[in-house]
Each structure stands twice: as C-alpha cells, then as structure tokens.
C-alpha cells in the first residue's frame, strides 16, 4: 500500500458528490481515475467523509472487477481468451506477452510500466485473436505481431 497519498484531489471529488452515500460507486470511479487505483488511505478517507462503513466500501470495491486495490501499470494489456480467439491461437499470444513482460496474467511489472489482464470475450470475434492495449484494439494477433506492438509502446 502506497504511503503519503495526496488526499486533496480526493477532497475535491468528495465535495462534488457532497459525500453522499448513494454516490459511492461514482466516487470510487473518480478516485481511481485520479490515483490509478484505490489505495487503502483513500478508502479510509472516503469512509471518514461519507460515513459509509469501511467494510461496505471494501465489499463494493472487491465486488466490481473495475476497481483495483493495488497500483496499476501505466499501460494495460488485455488479451482475449474467448472461444473464437482461443481457437485462433490466443494461448500462444498470451504466452508471448507473458514472456515479453516477465509477468503472468493479473500482475503488474516491477517498474509499473505494464499490467496484464485477460478477458473472456470482447465481442470482436471476427478480428480474433484480439489484444487491447490502453483501450486500442489490435486484431488478428500472432506471437510475432504482438511483440511488435509491445515494442512500439
């Protein structure tokens, strides 16, 4: 857990949402946007200001896949493992990415450059195997192709 988080950004977010408990998810989303993830100190501060129990905040944060409790890499790489991508070789694409970055799915590189995730389906099966880098879609990926894209980043 990172220390010395600058809570002034959070104060603005909380002000905007008037610290109302009905706005918890929106507050968490904006806080994550600002901090990159949700440090413990941020959650504790949200608890203090909104009076929502920390246990409930933690329950919400761990329920939604969109929230992260650990720092994220500057770049997010998502490899699709849906059925269509799988039969077209997503497995070897994933293996290549893991080898290239030196991490396995769900992990972040030690220099916080990359976070690697897999997804079940992106709805772009015609383009499979699909890899999404920082929101940009790359279709018909191969082991070699994905290395080129990663190097370019």
């Amino acid at each position, binding site marked *: 857990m990172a220390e010395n988080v600058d809570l002034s950004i959070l104060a603005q977010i909380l002000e905007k949402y008037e610290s109302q408990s009905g706005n918890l998810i929106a507050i968490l989303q904006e806080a994550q946007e600002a901090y990159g993830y949700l440090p413990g100190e941020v959650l504790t501060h949200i608890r203090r200001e909104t009076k929502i129990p*920390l*246990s409930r905040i933690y329950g919400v944060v761990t329920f939604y896949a969109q929230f992260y409790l650990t720092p994220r890499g500057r770049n997010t790489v998502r490899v699709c493992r849906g059925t269509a991508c799988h039969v077209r070789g997503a497995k070897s694409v994933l293996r290549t990415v893991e080898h290239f970055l030196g991490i396995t799915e769900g992990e972040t590189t030690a220099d916080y450059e990359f976070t690697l995730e897999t997804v079940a389906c992106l709805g772009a099966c015609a383009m499979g195997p699909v890899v999404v880098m920082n929101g940009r879609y790359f279709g018909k990926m191969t082991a070699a192709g994905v290395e080129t894209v990663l190097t370019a980043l």
Partner: protein
Amino acid sequence: MARVSLTIDGNRLEVDAGATILQAAKGAGIEIPHLCYLESLPPSSACRLCVVEVEGARNLVASCSYPVVTDMVVRTNTERVAKARRLALELLLSDHPFDCMTCEKSGACDLERYAYELGVSTTRFQGEKHAYPIDETNPFFVRDYNKCILCGRCVTACNEVQFVEAIDLTHRGFNTRVAAPFDRPLQESTCIFCGQCVAVCPVGALTEKLRRFKGREWELRKVATVCPYCGVGCNIELSVKDDRIIKVTSPATGVVNEGRLCVKGKFGFDYVNSPDRLTTPLIREGGKDGRFREASWEEALDVVASRLRQIKEESGPDSLAVTTSAKCTNEENYLLQKFARAVLGTNNVDHCARLCHASTVTGLGMAFGSAAMTNSIGEIRYADCIFIIGSNTSENHPVIALEVKEAVRRGGAKLIVADPRKIEMVEFADLWLRQKPGTDVALINGMVNVIISENLYDAEFVQRRTEGFEQLKEGIKDYHPSYVAQITGVPADDLCKAARTYARSPRASILYAMGITQHVAGTDNVLALANLALLTGNLGKESSGVNPLRGQNNVQGACDMGALPNFLPGYQLVVDKDVRGRFEEAWQTPLPDQPGLTLMEMMHEAEAGEIKGMYIMGEDPVLSHPNSARVVKGLKNLDFLVVQDIFLSETAKLADVVLPGVSFAEKDGTFTNTERRIQRVRKAIEPIGESRADWLIISELASKLGHPMRYEGPEVIMDEIASLTPIYGGVHYDRLNGRGLQWPCRDRQDLGTRYLHKDQFPRGLGKFHPIGYQEPSELPDDEYPFILSTGRVLFHWHGGTISRRSTGLTGIYPEAKVEINPQDAEVLRCSDGDLVQVVSRRGKVIAKAMVTDRSPQGVVFMTFHFREAAANLLTVDTLDPVAKIPEFKICSVQINKCS
C-alpha cells in the same frame, strides 16, 4: 392496524397487514425452514429455503420477504416446495464440508437439521470446493469459512443490531466471503467482539473458542441467569457440562437486552472456572507478616467470630466496619448489613456505591426524593433527544449504548454528547460539547440559563410539579453562554444549540455516569442535571428522565438493601425511630441509631486506629479506592481483617482470614439492574472446591456470634426483605420468572414501575437547587502539568480481578495504557507503545503510552484495571462534602518518558 385474512396449508388465519408469509405462518404455528432470515430484521432473501407455493403465482416465492394479501392461498409443504428446498440444500452442500461428526455446531446447526428433515445426505453437484485456512487470529472465536453458507446473518447482526459495521460480504461469485476491510484480522477493524455474529450463525462457521472440544450441543444444560459484569443486567444463558461453563448465549426474548451482549458478557465468563479460585478458607499464621495456611470452615469461622467478638467487647461495636459487595446478590447484601447492624451492632456498613454513585443517591434524593434511573432501558430508543454527559456509554454500558444508537439511527433522535474525551458515542452525535474536565456545573447551568432566557421551559410543569424556580432563576443568571464558554471551553453557539435541542424535544432523556458523579462537586453535578430535567418537564413520562447508569451488576440492589451507613433497606432512614422500631421487632434486637461511617471514612479511621476490625466482602479497595497507598496503610493498621472473596485479591493478601465465597454461577439469588429491575440469578454449577455461597457464610457466622440466622435459601431471605422494605414489598421469587419486577413494587398485585415520578415525586414537589460552579480540588500547575482522568475500557472490569482471569479479555487487552493526546506526545517526545512514568503528589506508575486524539490536550487517561500500573496510586482522595465520593476523574500529574 388493518388485518388481512389468508389461508396457509388449509388453515384460515387473520394477521396484521404488512406481515410476511413467514411471519403469518409462524403465528399460526407453522414453521417454514429458513437460513438467512432473522426475526425483527429486514429479510435478505438469500438462502431460498423458505420458498412456498402461492396460488396464482407462477414461481415459488420467498416467504421471508413476501407480504400477505387478502385471500392469499399459501402451501408450505407441497412436493414442489420440498424439491426446491432440497435443491437449495444440495447447492449449499456442494461447497460445504461433510464433517458434522466433529463440528461443534452439530445438534444446533440449521443446515444439518434441514438436511435431515428433507432427507438430503449428499449432493449431485461435484465441483470445486474452497479450502480456506481457519482463522484463529482473535482470542474469542474461530472463523471457519469453509463452513460458511453466505447467508449474511452475521453481516446483518454486525451492522443492524450492534451498529459496528466491521464485516461485509466481499469479493465476487464463487469467491464471495465475509471479511473485514482489506481481509485483515478483526482486531484491525471496528470489531468490538460482542459475538453477535457467532450468536446468529446458523452453521459452524463461527465458534466460541472456549467451547471447542468441551462438549456436544446435546450434552449442554442451559441455565437462565443474569450477566455478572455491569449494571445493565443482561439476560444470559449459561451452557454447562460437568460443572464447567462452556459458553454463554442470550435469548432474543430477554427483557433487558433482547439477545444482545457485549464482549464481557459473551466471552468473559471463564474466570468462574479459573485455577486461581480460592477453594478453602485461609488463616494467616505468625502475625501480620506471616503466611497463609489452609483451614477448615469450622476453624476459620471460629477465629473470625472470636476476634470480632473480642474487638466489639474491648473497643465497642463502632470500632468495627463492614463493606458489602455490589457483585453479590440482594439477599447477601441484605444479610451482611443485617449482620453489621443486628449482630455487630454498628451502622458502619457501606460498599462501592460510595465510589460511583453516592452523589446520585444524595443529589437525586434532594431533588426528587428517590435516587435511581427514572426511566427504563427499553424506553431510550423512543426518545426524541438524548443528552449523554460523563458516560462513556459504549464501553461501560455497551447494551444501553445500543439503545441510544437505535434511537439515533432508526428513531431519528438527536444525540448530544458532553465529554472531554472523544468517546465512541461522539461518532453518533449531532452535537459534541468538549467541556474542560470538572466544569460540568457551569455547562449545565449555561443550558439552564439559555432555556430560561429564551423562554423554552415547561412553565406548566414548573408551576404544577416543582418548587424553588425563582431561586434557580436567580442562581443561574450569571451563566450566560459567553461566560460559560470561558470556563468550559465549549463555544457559546454550541451551548445554545444544545440547550435548544434538549428543551424543544418532546421527550428528552439524560444519561450520565461517573463523569458526573466522581467529582468533589459530584452532588452539585447531579443537582444541576435534575434542574435541567425539572425545568423542561422531562420527568414522569416515558423516554425521558434523569438516568444514572449504575456500574456494578448489583450496585443498585446493594443500595436498595441498605448497605449504606445512613439507610436501612429501601432507603429508610436509620435515624427514624419508627423505621428502626420495625426492624428491631423483626430482627429481635436493638439497633444503633446514628449513621455510620462511609467507605472512605472507614479507611481513614482505620489509619487513625479508630476502626480496629473490618469485614470486607467481594471488594478490592486496594485497587478501587483513590490514593491506594493510604488505603494499604489503613488496612495494615487494623487489628483484624477478614476478606470474603472468590480470588486472593490485592486486599485479601492483607487479610488475617480469607473466606472463599462463590461466583454468580454457583448460587441462587437476585440482582437489581440499573433500571430497578429485580431479576433471578440461578445456580448453574456446584461451588468450586470447598467454597460456599456468601449468604451461607454470613448466616453461619451470625449464628456463631449468638444471633442465629437460619434461612432455607435465598427465596426465604427475599420474603423477609419484602416484609420490611416497602419498595420491594411485592417481590417474591415466584413472581420473578421471565421479566423480573421493577421497583417500586409494593405488594403482590403491583406489577412494578417502568418509569418513576408519574404523578408525584416521593418528596412531593421536585426541588430546584441553584448551584454554583466550583473548581476541582487539584488543578494542573508547573510541576504537575497534566490532568489525569481515570475510568474503564470495554474489555476489562474494575480492579481486573475477574476480567484479567478471562483468557479472551486478557488476550485482547493485556496491559495498562496511558492515553495521551498527539500534540502532548510530540512535546514529550514519546510515541505509541513507549513506556512513560505517570507521577502525582501521591505516587507513580509506569505504563505504555497510547497516542490518540481521544484525549484532549493536557489530559491523560488511565484505567484502574491493572495492579502493576494502578491508577489509584495517583488519584486524590478529596471527597464531595455531601456524598463523600472521591474525585477519581481529576488530579494533576506529570508525565516522563522512560529511557
């Protein structure tokens, strides 16, 4: 309320509109299986076991959340319903261990029971199973989440019953589990270990540590009794096997606490079976410095009788003194004061109420004519405004704090907290007044001033029910908010806001405790609060009043029983000849006619050599009295000291003879709780070793001294009490099952009194007392710059004699701490956990610093639970002139960091 008629399983019923099918069925004696539903709490509809068929509905419905409608036709036991329930059980069992043969819950497990009833012995769903490590990180209970069925009851109990909010359902899907924030141990969360989660868990996921491997559910015998810790008097059930208490539970039907407990009541019982218990009488041999040897009862009682007789003959009855015990039963307190008066012939009888609520007894006595909580615990939740002053309610009266939280969260009550420390109740407060220690009179006078000057008082009530209003008006005219702000440090605006909120609320209740009473101005503080309530007409009606929260389990009862130097049982004055005459006739002996010495005076007179013999039952003055070095000196100066206790306390170590009494679990009797409710205490196990019930010891000793006391049992003693004590006149054991009785209860027809002073005060009119603010007896100076305040914490009890012999309580709070404000800590260059020396004019102790903003700057706080760092070596023994209560809350100290 509108009624709805419907048919369930062919039975035509009529129920209140708004009821659910499950509730309607229950009322008709039809039980519907359920795992997640908890009575009186909102349903979560998670387990799907309570599904039933409703004619016309396409799907089965969850009966716990489905409201009844007119002419609904419900079937709870069709094959379709059974099939759905079996499916739900199979799904639960697909990720649940089949280890019922070693599970502590077996026999009381709802999952096991429903599986049995529906014939589900296996599951068709073979898939991944969890293998969570078993969480044994806290000292009270084990969490085995492999057995958890995710019903969510524990979460509801934690959030909605205890308002603790320590746990919730976390993570997602198959990995969902109940956890504290960040999956950290409960100690790092807001958990207070009340055990409500354990109490509601339908399966074996949560188990009390002390009961593990000690017996199966069906081997346990349950005994209904009363918690031995604080004055709330929670209803508990002891589960017993082979003369050992295995666990404590509390029935939801309990009149005082409705199934809610705190950590001490739930987990603090193992002192009863502690190996340290005294098992035989002890006699000191070889003079004051000699050693104890074991003795027979015959020998020990002979020694006590002959020494007491000798002192009485040589120095007169008033050279003897007796302290009774607020831990013992009413019957025992009654007998011991009778022993003092009728057998020894002295009114020198007192007990620890002198140290906690003596100023309540005097103050409320002067204002109303009777001193006890005016209203009942169960009324607090309906108050419109609650004013807590000088009560750390959530730590010292945890279940009463739940009533307050209930009032705030559900009833929309306004909560005003006045306390120098940032106690937990502040979190629930609308307004927090952080007065400087010892300035309560000024604060309350300020509120009275605002209420009068803004014409917010109840003129009709003042005119009809009170006297002395003009004197009050004159007396408080200087206490305008800006002047009060100077004395108390409370901003004038906040003071006005508090006064207006309190005065404008239709039903406002004052709760107070030792923060008010333990001052040299203790009586004044109480009188000032009485003024406030009289002025606003907050007396003689529900959910209002002036409510002193009594400390010990039976301190109310000990006072009622006349364990006081100026009162015979039922607050009948010793000096009243007619009263004395009735007791003399009943006890068949002349009685002393002058009030005796109070507790602190006894100690001082012992030091002076005037008191030569003392009989102490179930008290530990060495730890509980202020300026304890002086107490030790006094006790050592006695010719003869007999201590009757269950442990060799610090005081017992100084005795000439020690008599082993028994704990609450080993005898029958009654306790009277803080709301004047007399409740039955029932024997659950045989006395440990050769120890004897305290009432038996006293009667045998009395007989040896030539005044036979032959009682078949406590029930007969209570009959005698009833015959001599008008407020207990209708109290008999056959009437005490279930809800008990609240005094005044004057005869067999009297159902007792829920709230006092309805039409009249015992003294006639309520009396206003104009009170001026006076400074505490010892204020900080250059040499001793800090104020020391003393009190208790949630996890311990008084001198620690019992709570420190509970493995759980000691495990979670093992040592003494000194609370220091962060700014003071910085100046002292000490941080959390550093050892500091606390020095007063009377003594010094060493304890660990706990840096916290709970204490204001310039004030440190310590408990008196730990003999190694006994706060009462430091405290001052200056007394309130009327009540003779010492000023425990304020003395001045210096703090030095230990190198």
